């Protein structure tokens, strides 16, 4: 398993981490409160990200629809984000997909509910005064 994550560079040497450290650093630095990052922290974050990618992929695949499945799809991932506590933080960026018509219907129903509430509230106010 450890071999799986170590990448090989052009010379064929085994590397500890496959993801480019420079890119990881850019993402880390985009976080406003961060001042500086020591090299070890950078390497560990890159490595952790690789482990995360593996974990997200295998988890989603295993919990996906049907055992004969030969594919990993977007909905497997969004299901994981919604159902697993560990992956909850991804819920906003991996939203479930619904048909546009269904969404518009939901909006309409919500609007009607809101109008109902307002009406009830104003009736209550009138009753009090």
């Amino acid at each position, binding site marked *: 398993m450890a071999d799986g994550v170590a990448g090989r560079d052009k010379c064929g040497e085994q590397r500890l981490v496959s993801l480019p450290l420079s890119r990881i650093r850019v993402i880390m630095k985009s976080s406003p409160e961060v001042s500086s990052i020591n090299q070890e922290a950078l390497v560990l974050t890159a490595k952790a*990200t690789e482990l995360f*990618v593996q974990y997200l992929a295998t988890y989603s695949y295993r919990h996906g629809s049907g055992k004969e499945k030969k594919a990993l799809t977007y909905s497997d991932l969004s299901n994981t984000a919604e159902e697993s506590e560990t992956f909850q933080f*991804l819920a906003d960026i991996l939203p479930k997909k619904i048909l546009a018509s269904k969404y518009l219907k939901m909006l309409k129903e919500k609007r009607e509910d809101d109008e109902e509430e307002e009406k009830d509230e104003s009736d209550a106010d009138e009753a009090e005064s």
Partner: protein
Amino acid sequence: MAERPEDLNLPNAVITRIIKEALPDGVNISKEARSAISRAASVFVLYATSCANNFAMKGKRKTLNASDVLSAMEEMEFQRFITPLKEALEAYRREQKGKKEASEQKKKDKDKKTDSEEQDKSRDEDNDEDEERLEEEEQNEEEEVDN
């Protein structure tokens, strides 16, 4: 340095390779799924960084270090990553130590060569003295670095 949007993404080829190596052979990964995992990975980096930074601030430090990252994993409930991360850290430290020793060895060889060219006749005696001196220097350098 302004970040362009694509800089916050990780390279597709590497992400794809990691996914493929993790899943059983012959499993297809849709383009959407790949893109989603890539975005998720970027979000993970941000989340982990923010979390690690909290630990650094608690320790009144401005620089994120390895233990901050490990604490962050614990906090984020990715305890399963901690053992492989510690192993990776050990391997990285060994690698760094090896590199340092290799460059010091080069310097040592270079100095030795220069010295023996200068002192041909009394070579044996002088070389012994040089070795002792170089060993001392090495030790001193190591102490400085550890501090």
